[in-house]
């Protein structure tokens, strides 16, 4: 009895410490972005908003932010569309070669990004395609699709295939069924997929670094700023904004997903 509670106490403490260390670096940047000192060190020097206010007048940064937004939205939309196709085929159909097809689609999940980056770079340059935001979108699409597929597969698994059959049975066409049953049922997974893939694209650095040419995204811009020690506080402020944006989007995605799960659970 006591042995058991001691064991449970130890493991709970360990998990708490683990989570604390997990969050420590992530929350450290925001702390120093409000610190009135040019270098991040302890003790803290005092509260300031000047690093944030200098961001608002930085045209290069604004350009990079705009680029990131453009890339993120395009990658999120396209990857969700491709993800719907893949997730549907995986959950609703049986066919020879499914393992190979889905394996290739999911492969970017475990391939080192540098391998994907250099392969794409060589092929794109070889084909005479100039590097631009479009090439970044092409690259981000590869690494976003596996996440869309993961989210959407659980979406498809969450609703009974006979819903779609019932719609067909009641006289609706394939497209009508997609519009009136499939998409409304999948809506939470679609929103979740859009937000998650947008976040991934926003944070992605390696592919953007190789494929962006002269149009930097935010992480590429930050990378460029790291050479200048004096710019560090500005980078920390920008990083804090990006982390906040990611946290908000991921939380919204999670809430949407949970609501949908509760809805399908109530059914049975």
């Amino acid at each position: 009895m006591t042995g058991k509670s001691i064991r449970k106490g130890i493991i709970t403490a360990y998990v708490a410490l683990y989570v604390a260390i997990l969050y420590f670096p992530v929350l450290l940047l925001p702390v120093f972005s409000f610190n009135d000192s040019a270098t991040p060190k302890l003790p803290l020097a005092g509260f300031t908003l000047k690093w944030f206010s200098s961001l608002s007048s930085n045209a290069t940064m604004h350009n990079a932010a705009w680029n990131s937004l453009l890339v993120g939205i395009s990658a999120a939309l396209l990857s969700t569309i491709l993800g719907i196709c893949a997730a549907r085929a995986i959950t609703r159909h049986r066919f020879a070669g499914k393992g190979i097809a889905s394996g290739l689609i999911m492969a970017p999940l475990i391939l080192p990004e540098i391998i994907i980056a250099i392969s794409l770079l060589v092929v794109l340059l070889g084909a005479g395609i100039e590097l631009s935001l479009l090439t970044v979108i092409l690259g981000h699409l590869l690494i976003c699709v596996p996440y869309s597929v993961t989210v959407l597969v659980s979406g498809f698994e969450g609703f009974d295939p006979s819903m779609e059959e019932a719609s067909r049975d009641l006289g609706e066409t394939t497209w009508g069924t997609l519009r009136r049953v499939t998409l409304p049922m999948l809506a939470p997974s679609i929103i979740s997929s859009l937000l998650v893939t947008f976040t991934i694209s926003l944070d992605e650095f390696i592919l953007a670094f190789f494929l962006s040419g002269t149009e930097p995204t935010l992480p590429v811009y930050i990378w460029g700023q790291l050479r200048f020690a004096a710019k560090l506080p500005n980078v920390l402020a920008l990083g804090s904004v990006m982390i906040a944006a990611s946290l908000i989007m991921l939380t919204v995605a999670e809430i949407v997903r949970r609501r949908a799960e509760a809805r399908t659970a109530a059914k049975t």
Partner: protein
Amino acid sequence: MANMIEINGVEKHYGSFRALGPVSTGIAEGEFFSLLGPSGCGKTTLLRLIGGFDEPTLGSISIGGADMSGMPANLRPTNMVFQSYAIFPHLNVSENVAYGLKRQRLGREEERRRVDEALAQVELTGLGPRMGNQLSGGQRQRVALARALVMRPKVLLLDEPLSALDKKLREQMQVELRHLQRQIGITFVLVTHDQYEALAMSDRIAVMFGGEISQTATPKDIYQSPSSRQVADFLGGMNFLTAQEVRTAGGQFSADLPGIGKVAGKLTSAGTTGASPVIGIRPERLRIVWEGESADPVINGKVADRHYFGEVTNLAVEIEGQEKALSVVETNDFGADDIPIGSPVRLTYDRDAFVYMPS
């Protein structure tokens, strides 16, 4: 009456595996037709072929005289009540029922009228605004029914529609469904694995095993004159008897049963001759002859086992000459539940109770 559904040499293959067929049968207009069989016998496959959710590999199906080959589900004059009911959780009850009508562009008033009518038919009046995911099992079943009936199909397909309900509700819905079918008069095709359900509701039953139909007949015929051991076994208990000299002639059969005596009976249309015919008798057609009672004919046996089932007791009675003990179902009114195991017992039977099964 012309057949509403004609099924002609239909087979369904998955790769080299033949899941169904060949199946040929006709289902009459206004008939309540059941496909009965154990799981994996192909009954649901056949129903899905009729509904247009799958294409037969071979053969053809016609409905109302029109060939359905290549016709998708949304263009067929059939509607389906799914096993899971498939109620759209993002729509309310009215929207669920009106789902198929929306495409017909009836106008708001007419659509409303039809929805209300359908809801009244299944006794759900007033439940229209309830969301699809806030319904009980029984209500979901009724919404599924209303949603299909509102389309005024020529044929209603029901895929194990009662299997998700508890016993009491299931029995109530059996009566209601049968009543509804008589009232609207369209063809119902029901898939079920529950023999009592099929017997209670159907005009005719097709019993399926291994992807093929073993026997198609009215509930009474199928119960009293099963065409094979398999069918007899699936529809309740049957004593299969050790028999000598089984003969058939002139629409009659006769046999000599060791320990029981010579018996005879009518041959039914289900089958006249077979390679290895079997003689059987249902447990409830055997009766105990109590002390002081006289009966003819009489079989002498010994009680080998006894199981109490509330209103009835199931006795296993050993009879000299018969390999297996006979199963006897006796009401408990006279003390069948108190007969000591091992005691001698006398049995009697109606002379027409024996069944000849060709295979």
